[in-house]
């Protein structure tokens, strides 16, 4: 099963390589990975999407927690959460295709953020499944390139991920 795992890490050099190294060394799968700073300078938040049965996911969470720089791990599947991913997709859009691409983008609530005589670049936000559905719906529209951010997740409700006290 697909799991979104959120990780708060000490904002140290090499923190990302510890996570990436763990996944490759133990043969776990990473579908996507996204790292960025947070409102707390000392932390960075890493969101990764992986898949596996419950035992594999349990080990992944335990092994992540074992990394000394990891402050907090949360498997989003354990909680009600919202998933979002950003996709920038560049499509060939010639004369008779332009209208169709435009309409599809509208239907998926995407925005056209770059236009040339022969192309549209569409920005689309949503859960990964929605982005996949858009790509499927394109049918015969030729894709030039797809840039996806990887999924992000946040728990519903007023509380954030708790950083343990020292």
């Amino acid at each position, binding site marked *: 099963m697909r799991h979104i795992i959120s990780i708060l890490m000490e904002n140290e050099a*090499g923190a990302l390589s510890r996570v990436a190294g763990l996944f490759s060394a133990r043969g776990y799968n990473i579908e996507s990975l996204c790292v960025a700073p947070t409102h707390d300078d000392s932390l960075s938040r890493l969101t990764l999407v992986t898949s596996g049965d419950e035992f594999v996911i349990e*080990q992944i969470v*335990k092994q992540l927690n*074992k990394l*000394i*720089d990891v402050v907090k791990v949360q498997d989003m599947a354990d909680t009600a959460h919202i998933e979002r991913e950003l996709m920038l997709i560049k499509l060939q859009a010639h004369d008779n295709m332009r209208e169709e691409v435009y309409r599809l983008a509208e239907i998926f609530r995407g925005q056209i953020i770059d236009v040339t005589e022969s192309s549209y670049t569409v920005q689309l936000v949503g859960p990964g499944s929605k982005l996949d559905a858009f790509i499927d719906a394109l049918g015969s529209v030729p894709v030039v390139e797809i840039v996806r951010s990887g999924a992000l997740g946040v728990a519903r409700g007023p509380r954030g991920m708790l950083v*343990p*006290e020292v």
Partner: protein
Amino acid sequence: MELSGGEILVECLKAEGVDTVFGYPGGAVLHIYDALFQQEQVQHVLVRHEQGAVHMADGFARATGKPGVVLVTSGPGATNAVTGIATAHMDSIPLVVFTGQVHSALIGNDAFQEVDNVGITRPCVKHNFMVKDVRDMAETIKKAFYVATTGRPGPVVVDIPKDVTDPKVKVPFSYPEKVAMRSYQPTEKGHSGQIRKAVDMIVNAERPMIYTGGGVILGRAGDELTHFTRKLGYPIVNTLMGLGAYPSSDKQFLGMLGMHGTYEANMGMHHCDVLIAIGARFDDRVTGDLSKFCPYAKIVHVDIDPSSISKNVVVDVPIVGAVKSVLTEMIDLVNQAGGAKKPKELESWWDRIEQWRGMKSLEYKWSDDIIKPQYVVQKLWEVTGGDAFVTSDVGQHQMWAAQYYGFNKPHRWINSGGLGTMGFGLPAALGAKWAFPDEEVACVTGEGSIQMCSQEMSTALQYQLPVKIVSLNNGYLGMVRQWQEFFYSGRYAMSYMDSLPDFVKLAESYGHVGMRIDKPSDVEGALREAFAMKDRLVFMDFQTDPEENVYPMVPAGAGLNEMILL
């Protein structure tokens, strides 16, 4: 007090109570060596190869329970140390390894003797650091010792660019008294509800088995384990790493389990109804085929590392905590419950176990003409009163040492269990001897393994470390040959050791005593003569049966009840 980085490092070692550093100098660590040179409190042992330095510190750590400290230079100094670091990592041994690094300004430039130490060691350390500013040195070292020695212990590498130890750059120094890390807070105390649940299951067991590993030794919980086991009257087995945690001369002890475990240990595991796993990690050499492992058992598992629990075998009652603390609570609850509740079932369980024990799975065929390796280990036990520190390398001799040297105390059996590192035995023995100069230290090895770190005989002379090398020389890489005999129709690919050195002369050339022993009748005399030479390293080259095998054996992919017996 204003100090340079090199001086700070030395002061930190003093503050941590470190009396010895094992190492080898080089360009990137010259400032540190200069600081070490100008004081006397912290001694330095100069090895002959960095791998030897790490194994020596490792042997020191396993014998004493204190962290071992290593200092090596950048580039090849660090890469040579990697095998030692990985060895310590697999067996959870606390080490702090300082590696030199090129000047900060040169990092990433492919500078002379530059290698990415942090990157190379990342998968085989508990944690690593690079000190980028001399002002961070003291806190980083404090954290390094804290991480190495707490929770599930392990090696920590501290990489130090040369400019950080520049003697001209002095900064205020004070050693932090405490360290607190929000991202690292190991659980010591077990969950009391889980402990109660476990004890309830344990005292009601009909066919119980206690299975313990290196965690009991690392957690210094030998006394608690012994008390717990005796109070219950249950059978106990140890892993290779756990030998000595429970006195092997005791009747409740069934021996080592796993691939070369005793018949009674493995059959007991297979047929038990409650398995009590303490400080052990269900390694593949222990479990055999997982699908056939302990098919009738409910499993309690106590371990300080949550990731060890349900990693290979899904358990019924997991308890995360330090084994000493958890066992202490368990003993109280067992006492409250009045001990084991099924004496009749337990009696018939012991009857079955005694039948398995009656198979005498460790018996071997005697020969008047050729030395049996098992006999050498048995005589070693007699000559040393069963009380020596025994290190080993890796292979058949390691298994024979584990099977035939009955360890009655923890910390006495020192071997590379997880990584299986040939070359470990001699330097580890030197580290143990350095820590305990008045105790007997024997390195049980073979003609293959000893050649992987034999250069440390030179270190032994320089520092007068008179260990006894018991080499079981069968002219083969014995364990490889055994597998080739069993599983490759006797095609002995590259397992025959041709062109061996004259080990007697080799020992003599290093300034030690060498002995060659050919006849079974000379074994005991030679051992007695060697151990009588208190202040000399003696290399005993025993010419043993070339085709002797280690029995019993659970072939890879078989269940523990599917042993090959002699």
